[in-house]
């Protein structure tokens, strides 16, 4: 399993491949903000401080959302869209963008 640290909440959780970060938030009771939960509203944008390679590729919705945000978005992801794609690894996430 991949270790996901949610820095702002002091939570570290082992996550099986295929789970979205939204599911991680729901399971752990993390305090990250969500809006539409389907990739439209950009509310759940967060910073992946390390371990981006263990997450899924950005899908069309994410790419569109990040383009709207503009600036340096290389570390940003929509928590409702990205999912853990590996069996092992370590991901660190901060809600502050």
């Amino acid at each position, binding site marked *: 399993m991949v270790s996901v640290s949610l820095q702002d909440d*002091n939570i570290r959780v082992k996550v099986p491949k295929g789970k979205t970060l939204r599911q991680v938030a729901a399971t752990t009771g993390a305090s990250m903000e969500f809006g539409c939960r389907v990739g439209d509203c950009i509310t759940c944008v967060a910073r992946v401080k390390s371990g981006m390679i263990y997450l899924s590729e950005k899908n069309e919705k994410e790419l569109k959302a990040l383009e709207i945000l503009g600036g340096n978005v290389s570390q940003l992801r929509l928590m409702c869209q990205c999912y853990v794609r590996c069996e092992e690894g370590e991901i660190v996430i901060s809600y502050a963008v």
Partner: protein
Amino acid sequence: MVDLITKITKSVDFIGAFDPKIRTFDIIMKTANGSSYNSYVVRGSEGVAIMDTVKKEFSEDFFKRLEFMCDYEEIKYIVLHHLEPDHSGALIELMQKAPKAKLIISGRAVMMLKGLIKSDIEFEVANTGRIISLGDKTIEFLSTPFLHWPDTMSSYLHEEKVLFSGDVFGSHYYDERLFDDEVGDFSYAFKYYYDHIMRPFKQYVLQALKLYDTFDIKVIAPLHGPILRTNPQFYIDKYAQWSSEAKFRKHEFGKKMLSVFYMSSYDNTHLMAKKIMDGADSVEGVVASMYDLASLDEQNMIDLLEESDAIIIGSPTINGDAVKPAWDLLSCMAFLESNGKIGASFGSYGWTGEAPEMLHDRMRWLKFRLPVRPLKIKLIPTEDEQQSCFEFGVEIAEITMGKMVEMEMEI
């Protein structure tokens, strides 16, 4: 007949609308003094910018004032700091009348705009640091999200040191004298607005204030109520104080507050509450308290919820549901910020026992951190079960004190 001239600074004029008769705003807010939908025009040597519009029913006043101040061809930018309908109600008509104007919104406003307009219109996104020019006037944008919608932003007119703050620093207070030094006493409206609109987003208020602090502000032009020009810092300080108030206990002892709220039919949930409180209280740095929901009124609930770092709610299950005071308690979270607060639930039950799980689910939607599963006990807690309650309290208190939560998700 509307008064067409209301000069704010040399290059900024008020073109908003007054709503003296409104008595309830957004369903939940009482507006004893009516309100205003503030909109402004900023004039530069190379065109004008319109800062927000008004509620649709008040478009006529808005356009009368706007047409008195400028021609539609002059409008270079339309800025929407916040898309709620009381500020975007005249947008479509304005864009039709000023087709050359560029609409500027925040990134998080994009989908809201589509939801409101229901058609594709062109816009540009402004993040912190984005600057637009009107020739001899410069407007800089500041991302100030979640105040009180995700889309909200602010902007700053450099040459005249005007902060367009969106709903931040607003008041529902109708008074056509408009300036804080000329209107009647709007202090209660200013605080009431903060309590009902901004209080749930305190952490974002503090982030915005940090951003505002980098600017020299002479005038604050909010979207509702008086324009604040006598001593803007006074209002900024009020927001800072209200958003960072050290609470009674924490202030006094530097401790974390953990509150156990409960209701009990046969004393079993009460016994669980007592053991949980004892467990929590045994953890260094935590002050645990317990409250019988049967005897709390709404204001007590709001204050206690706000003061608490961790909230544990106990309810028996009656006819497959938690008891009404438990739901009433959670409904008070509408006035507060739950992010970062730790939540948990428990209860004794005789038959089906859904209440703790239902409260847990409700708290999840209210964005509590819920690091432990609900604790249910069938009827009278045994000695071992009482020990489980004690340990439940210890666990939650330790997490409240910063213990890393280690979890594993099921495949």
